[in-house]
């Protein structure tokens, strides 16, 4: 299993377009991927789950992936979050 703690820095957080991009990226991997904040856990491939997590700007989240491509999955989601979901710099 791969695990990573990361802070959401983009303006709207894991809402709207960023949430959609996050879920699309997660769906690209075979591994089971969970994203948790405080004591709530969401399936990273479920847009409704991710939205209801309420991870706004500044939220600390934990990503956990388990499966054959777990390392790649965590790497890709980390890059996406760190790029602020492609919002212009």
């Amino acid at each position, binding site marked *: 299993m791969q695990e990573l703690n990361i802070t959401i820095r983009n*303006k709207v957080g894991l*809402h709207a377009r960023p949430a*959609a991009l996050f879920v699309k990226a997660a769906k690209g991997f075979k591994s089971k991927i969970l994203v948790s904040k405080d004591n709530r856990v969401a399936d990273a491939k479920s847009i*409704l789950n991710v*939205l*209801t997590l309420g991870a706004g700007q500044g939220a600390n989240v934990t990503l956990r992936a388990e499966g054959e491509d777990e390392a790649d999955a965590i790497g890709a989601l980390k890059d996406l979050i760190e790029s602020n979901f492609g919002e212009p*710099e």
Partner: protein
Amino acid sequence: MQSLKGIPASEGIAIGPAFVYHPVAISVERHVVADTEAELARFHAAVERSKEQLVQVQREAQATVGSNTAAIFEAHRMFLEDPTLLDAIEERIRGGQNAEVALADGINLFAAMLAALDDSYLRERAADVHDVGQRVLRVLAGVEEKALSSIHTPAIVVAQDLTPSDTAQMNKELVLGFCTASGGTTSHTAILARMIGLPAIVGAGDQVLQIQQGETIILDGTSGEAILAPDDATLSIYREHRVAWVAAREAAKGAAQLPAVTRDGHRFEIVANIGDAESAKSALEFGAEGVGLLRTEFLFLDRAAMPSEEEQYRAYLEVAKVMGKRPVIVRTLDIGGDKPVPYLNLGQEANPFLGWRAIRISLAQPELFKTQLRAILRAGAGYNLKIMLPMIATLSEIKQARRLLDEARQELSERRIEFAESIELGIMVEIPSAAITSDLLAPEVDFFSIGTNDLTQYTLACDRTNTRVAGLYDHLHPCILRLIRTVIENGHRFGKWVGVCGEMAGDLDAIPVLVGLGLDEFSMSAATIPATKSLIRQLDLGAMRELAEQVLNVATAEQVRSLVRAAATNPRA
């Protein structure tokens, strides 16, 4: 012949067949399913069909209303691919529920979760989840969607009420007007109708839903009356009304393109306050003769780092290209601690409106300021851009800004990049100190633009968004009028033109006074330009000068208003 009365929401006359829009609400009945596999297959087929519909709807919306609204339908499609939602529904079907009940339960569960969150964006998504649930239910029931996208001939849209996702798919070219059972003057239907200039009646009651599909109706958006089954005599009267209204509408559009000249031949410049190239285009349609205030904050908000010179240059150039040779006044960054701008380190302030903001930040962060100045100078090459500094309180701020402007020019010439060699530099007069000492500032600037919103707030020391003190806020208070007179006189004494770029410039009660005080330029939101021009054409400058003298000597804003209105009923007085 029958007449229905509603709230007049948008002016004009429409005559034509009704297109009655009934979004179908599907009732869900519970029954026990023996063959759960077949029921699962039925559910999956309905989901696939719904996703195909959404692709189609999204494509239509993209073409008619643009990508932002179209993105709603992409979100709908993602909901139908959501594993937790699908799992919840499938589990219920495996437990023997029919697809309709399972779907409705699953949808309600997730919509309730979203609706319970303390976030308006997510609460709106709850409506989207319901919306997508209704779509799948319609497919399961075999009910065809009678969408507004199926309007193929000109018609008057009749409905309970209309939401943005209803009107997103509507071909606006074919809509003659709107008539809704519910809603008020600020409902989506009313706002849309006024924006696109179509007659509308809202809140006319449930009787409107009895109107037959294709029945000819007359809509009078000015009186709020809808006439059903009109007889020939009534029809011919209203046909004449419609011809007159269409002619008047075209004339108003045409007249807005002409200059604002008083009866006695004095011309005033009417320009627009805008935020980007898109609003620049619409400002031209409303008859703007240029841009009196280009807000640049949009480039700086909602992002993690400062916009580069190149990005700013392209944004300013885009607006300049729309305006061609017309003047465009670019206001430099006007932001303070009330806005979250992470990369500026604004911090928390007890009094953000009296704090570190606007020109104060720009002068303290010269690289940030010069980056913006270089971008404006470059975009100004071949166009008529001017620079305006917000929140100037003292003379030394103008001198510092000029030095930085010289440095920015120097840097560009060292880089051998084309830029506007000479560019006008003006200031916003929005702090009382600047108005009072405008004789000291005038020699150092090329123009003054009075920001009446902030000038009023600062002079009367009242926050207009605080309901307990908002009553004090009135830009027609004699204290504001006296400051404006001072600024205009001092500007003119040094040969500098003076404008107003607050809401006051488009206030029909204030315009006669500003004309009388000798203001040169009026900058306002574009939609108020046609009415402003039409008012100025009815005025006589000589009479307005006398009016201005009078109003400067009364004690209250109410007295000012009543004098203006008395003069307006007799513009030559």
